[in-house]
Structure formats: structure tokens, C-alpha cells
């Protein structure tokens, strides 16, 4: 009896790998003729208020010229999209993958390095000089381009002129300032009005990354090695974060809903973030006309008043059946169609990374929500000044290591010690 059990188990064990190896995919169906596709070009995307309708307009534009190509946009949450992509790519299966997928810029290097050969190389397909430099750098591995640069995460310092006026702060006082001056203004605003100047969560690294990139620095060096221990920009940015806390300068939030709620409810007078926040700012329709834009503060005298937070790009899956059709489509729309970029700016507030589009009519028109200010032209202008950095593939590891040690810094631990433990933790994480 016992013997039989063990025989059964052994048999099962032997059988399983056989099943596993037996389920190898049959080779992908031959690539369809250019212009027509056997199956629809499948696209994974995550924001039904932003990148999905934008992709839909790209498709609508493309179909006018190429009615034979069919498309299918699959909507899923960003976390689901990342999970699904990860699991399917890791399993080695060729089935179930989309033809085109949207990937956040901070994540791009991670996927490109972890799944070599899975994404189509596009170096010769696009003229990458037509995209802004700091944007294309996210999608380069070993000198090869993989990304179709999409929305920019150019950062802006958005504020409410009428609220600042109550504290005696004029718009000119916000132009090209440093973060220390920003803190002073926040203190002045709070003293005069009793309200907070801006909202932030002390464990959220968003602003910190804006500060770092504006100084041309990051958690890593150009060669990908950890750059924390002797990183003056980081030390400086941490000092600013500590000022936020010790001087009680920011309205404390714990997540997106809270944070956006603080601006929509008029609890705070400003928000500094990536330009994709415009959609959320505009959700406060009663505040129309009472918003304005200034460049982000700089970290030090050597730094710039331009930075970036987030943003994403499209990637084509290498082994997909519709690879060529997908690339042709992306080339025609994202790499050439100027009017498409004007359309998505007007309809969706999306600032692309395609430089020729920046002189288009949509960019040069004022926005009544911002009191007629030409915010998009301004943002496009900032976008071209953002220092290029190598974000590497470990942004999230770095974020967890840095922000995870901030509490002990707030509690009074010596800065060098905190930086050392951040450095040690991150080094261990990415080994």
C-alpha cells in the first residue's frame, strides 16, 4: 500500500515536467502582410480618462487611411497590467501578450533588462531626435531604442493666485525660486492665512525625485551604481523634506485621493507635480480661472527650474504576430502626426514628447482655466530643459530604501548615518 503511494507520487512527479514541457507554444502565426492583420492589434493600457481615449484617437486617425487594420484596446488597472505582463513574460509563453503595451518610464529599464529580446527594437524605425532627449533615454538599453515616447511627466508648480494674494505673495515671487525660498513662502502663507501652502505625504518620494532630477542627479550614477552616500543633491532634498515636517509647512496626506482632494477642496494653495496632474486640477471646476503655472523650484544654485515626475511610453512586443502592423501604426501616429498631438492636448490635456508638435496651435493657445496663461507652451518649454538622467531599473527599490529611512532622519538621526543605512539597504536590495 505504502509502496503504491510512493509509486503513484513518483509517477506524478515524472509526469508533471513532461506536461510542462509538452505545453510549449506552437510557433507564432506568420506575420501578416503589411497593412492587414489576421488578428486585431492588441493594446494594453490603464487609464480610461487619459491614455485609453488618446490611443483611441490615434486609432481613429490611422483607420481613416488604413481601414483594414483592426485594433483592440484592453483596459486594466496599472497594477494588473504590470502583473500580467510580468507573469506572462516570465512564463516564457508567447500567447496572451498584447502587441503594444504602455509602460511607466520608471519601470521601462526594469522590463527591458529583465526580459531581453521580448520588446521590439525600434532604433531604425523612429527619428529619436524629434523627441525630447530626457524622454528617449528611459527606453535605451545598450545604445538601442525600444520606446515610443508618449506623455511627458514635465513638472510644474501650479498655484492659486487669489489665495496667494491674501498672504501678500505675488506671482512674480514664485518665478525661478529655490526650494528654500519655497519653504519660506509656505511659512509666510501659513502665518498670514492659517492654511497650508501645499500638500505632501512625508513618506512619498514624488517631490524628492522632482528635486533630484532638477539637479541632474538620481539615486544612481550614470553607470548604474548606487549614488546615495555621497549624493549632495539627495542630502539637500532630504533637508528640504525635513523642513516641511519640522516647520509644519505641508498639509499631510496619505495617498492620491487625499492629495488631490486637498487641491480640489481648496485646502491648499498650490501643487507641484508632473503635468498629468492638470486633469485632476481641472476636476475642481469651480476654481476655473484661478490657477496659474510657474516653473518648479530648483534645489541649488547650479540646478535648473525644470524637472520630471512619472510619464510613460509605448512598447511593442517583439514576438507578437502583428509586430510590423503595430510599428507602422505607431510610426504614422506617434512619430509623425502633428495634428494628432494637437488633438490629444486639446481633448485630453496630454503633453506629448514629440518636439515638432510644440509649436502647434493647441500649444500656443491660452487656457481659460489658467486665466488665459499659455500653460502648455510653458510646460513644453520646461520639458526641453529637464536634465537627462539614467533612472536605471531600480527606481522602486531605491524609493523604498530612501523613504523607508526618512522617518529616522525626521526623528533626529544624524544625516550621514541615515544616508549610509539607505545606501546599505539599496545595495543589498539590488545585488
Amino acid at each position, binding site marked *: 500500500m505504502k509502496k503504491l503511494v510512493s509509486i503513484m507520487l513518483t509517477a506524478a512527479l515524472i509526469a508533471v515536467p513532461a506536461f510542462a514541457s509538452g505545453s510549449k507554444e506552437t510557433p507564432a502565426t506568420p506575420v501578416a502582410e503589411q497593412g492587414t492583420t489576421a488578428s486585431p492589434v492588441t493594446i494594453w493600457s490603464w487609464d480610461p480618462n487619459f491614455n485609453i481615449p488618446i490611443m483611441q484617437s490615434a486609432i481613429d486617425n490611422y483607420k481613416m487611411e488604413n481601414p483594414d487594420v483592426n485594433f483592440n484596446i484592453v483596459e486594466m488597472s496599472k497594477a494588473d497590467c504590470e502583473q500580467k505582463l510580468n507573469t506572462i513574460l516570465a512564463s516564457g509563453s508567447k500567447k496572451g501578450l498584447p502587441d503594444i503595451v504602455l509602460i511607466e518610464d520608471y519601470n521601462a529599464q526594469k522590463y527591458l533588462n529583465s526580459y531581453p529580446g521580448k520588446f521590439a527594437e525600434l532604433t531604425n524605425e523612429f527619428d529619436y531626435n524629434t523627441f525630447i532627449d530626457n524622454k528617449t533615454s528611459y527606453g535605451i538599453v545598450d545604445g538601442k531604442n525600444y520606446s515610443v515616447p508618449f506623455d511627458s511627466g514635465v513638472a510644474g508648480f501650479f498655484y492659486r493666485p487669489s489665495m496667494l494674494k491674501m498672504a501678500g505673495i505675488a506671482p512674480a515671487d514664485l518665478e525661478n525660486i529655490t526650494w528654500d525660498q519655497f519653504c519660506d513662502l509656505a511659512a509666510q502663507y501659513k502665518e498670514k492665512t492659517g492654511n497650508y501652502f501645499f500638500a505632501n505625504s512625508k513618506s512619498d518620494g514624488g517631490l524628492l525625485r522632482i528635486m533630484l532630477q532638477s539637479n541632474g542627479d538620481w539615486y544612481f550614477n550614470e553607470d548604474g551604481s548606487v549614488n546615495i552616500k555621497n549624493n549632495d543633491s539627495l542630502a539637500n532634498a532630504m533637508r528640504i523634506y525635513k523642513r516641511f515636517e519640522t516647520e509644519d509647512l505641508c*498639509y499631510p496626506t496619505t495617498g492620491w485621493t487625499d492629495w488631490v482632494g486637498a487641491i480640489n477642496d481648496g485646502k491648499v494653495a498650490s501643487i507641484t507635480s508632473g503635468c498629468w496632474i492638470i486633469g485632476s486640477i481641472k476636476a475642481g471646476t469651480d476654481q476655473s480661472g484661478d490657477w496659474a503655472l510657474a516653473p518648479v523650484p530648483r534645489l541649488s544654485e547650479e540646478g535648473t527650474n525644470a524637472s520630471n515626475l512619472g510619464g510613460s511610453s509605448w512598447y511593442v512586443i517583439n514576438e507578437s504576430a502583428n509586430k510590423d502592423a503595430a510599428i507602422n501604426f505607431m510610426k504614422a501616429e506617434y512619430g509623425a502626426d502633428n495634428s494628432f498631438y494637437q488633438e490629444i492636448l486639446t481633448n485630453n490635456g496630454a503633453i506629448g514628447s514629440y518636439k515638432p508638435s510644440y509649436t502647434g496651435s493647441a500649444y500656443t493657445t491660452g487656457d481659460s482655466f489658467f486665466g488665459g496663461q499659455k500653460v502648455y507652451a510653458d510646460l513644453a518649454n520646461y520639458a526641453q530643459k529637464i536634465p537627462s538622467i539614467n533612472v536605471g531599473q531600480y527606481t522602486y527599490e531605491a524609493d523604498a530604501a530612501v523613504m523607508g529611512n526618512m522617518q529616522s532622519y525626521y526623528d533626529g538621526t544624524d544625516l550621514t548615518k541615515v544616508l549610509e543605512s539607505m545606501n546599505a539597504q539599496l545595495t543589498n536590495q539590488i545585488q
Partner: protein
Amino acid sequence: MSSHLKSNKTGWFFILPVAVLLACFLLYPIIYSLYLTLTSTKGIVTNFVGLSNYTKMFHDPMFYKALSNTFIILLVQVPIMLILAITFASMLNNKDIKFRGFFRTALFLPSVTSLIAYAILFKMMFSFDGLVNQGLLAFHFIQTPIQWMNNPGTAMFVLIFAMIWRWTGYNMIFYLSAMQNISSDLYEAASIDGASRKISFFKITLPLLKPMILFTTVMSTIGTLQLFDEPMNFAAGGTTASMVGPDNCFLTLSVYIYNLCFKYSPRFGYASTISYAILVIVAILSFAQFRVSEDSEAKLERKARRNK
């Protein structure tokens, strides 16, 4: 003999489908993940590295952070929750109490709410201008609002508080059903002998509940070690960030495994190593709990066996 063998064969034939399924979906993943712990994987870039994942784990501050967070929750939340559950159960087991059905339902109701919904509700209640702060301000308990979710200590308190709210009723039902199986003769006899309510609770109810207490303790321990939904939702919503609460205070072992697989550069090998660490911890804790709750008879038996 031959007919015995034959019936055995028929039996094996019938369990074959299940055996195959179990082998495919249970045994194979377990063995494959054990193999993964010996590899350094970054997506599909895999190298065999022997035991270095294990040595790495013992030097990983994030792993220790996750471990200590998990154990704080385990040591604080589980005892409070189980004691409350027993208290409520024995109160509601009292036949003299009015509206018993209502109270039972009310106490059980939290455990049918969605994990995500309740986590988000608690997060809202404890936000800077949330219900709790407004209440405390209105009654002048505090002068300035408390940043519940922004300080590691208070954030952990909110998490534990929320979990107690959610899971107490669930455990109470186990105790209640066990209590209803205790014969009322015992209590009657005890009261004739002059035992007070208190004495009969400690001398009759608790000893007879022992198997159920063991069951709930083991289940809660395993549940806590695999804790994922609540901390994940409490921590969600950072602006493109990967922090898990202030000072990573919501980083439990399961959340860390998730982050290793899906948030960070996908390292399935190291993630498997940590899940094996959880397995070992659960095994040790469950074994210890069985030992502690062993009744005296079994203890004597084991001693006698050893002395043979």
C-alpha cells in the same frame, strides 16, 4: 487477498484524477518554487546560485523590517482579538441576554465586508480631516488633528484596530458554536456545587474550548503571517511611489514578496526564498502551539514513550 488487491486498484483508479491534479497544481509548484530559491532570477534571466538567496535573506534589512512588522501585528492583534472573541461569545451564549440574534449578527457583520472596502473606509476615517480626528476635536480630546496614517506608531495602531474590528466576529462564531456544544448539565452541576459564574467559565468553558482555541490561534497565526490585503490597501495611492506606509510600517512578509515580484525588478527566486521562510516560521509556530495546548494526558503519554 486478490480481491483485496483488486478493490485497492479500483480505489486508486478513482483517486487518480485528484492525485494528478494535486501533483500538477500543488506538488509541482511547491517543488519548482524550492528550485527557484536556488536561482537568481531577474525576469527570464536566470542563474543557478546555490544557497546565496538564503544568505542574502539573513542580511536583508527589508526582510527583517517585514518580519518584525508581521510579528508586532501577530503578538498584539491576535491575542487581543481572540480574548475579545471569547468574551463576546460567552456573553452572547448567555440565554438571559435580550436581542441575542441581533448582537450576534452585528458582531459577525464586519467579517462579511470586503477586505478592500473596509481597509479604504478605515483609511478615510483616520485621515487628517477624517471622522476620527473631527470627533476628537469636537469633544476637545485633542487640540490639533493627529496624523494617524503618517506616523509609524499610530499607523500600526490603525491597522491593528481595523483588523480587530474585521476579524473578531469571525472568531467569535467558532467559539460560540463550540460553547453551544458544551452540555448545560456541567454548568448545572457546578452551580449546585456552589461554583460562581466566573469559576465555571474558567474551569468548564475554557478547558472545553481548548481545541477551538488551538484551531483559531493556528488559523490566526497563519492568516497574520500571510497578511496582505489590509496593509497593501492602507499603503496604496502614493504618487508613483513604492513606500509601504510611513517608515515602511505596512511592509509585511507577503507585501514584500509581492513587491519583489511585481513592483521591483522581478526576482522570483528571492521571492520564493522568502515564502519558504514563511513556511518554516508557520511550521515552527504551529508545532509550538500544538505542544503548548497539548492536554496533560498526551503529555504523560509522550513522556512514557520517551522513558521506554
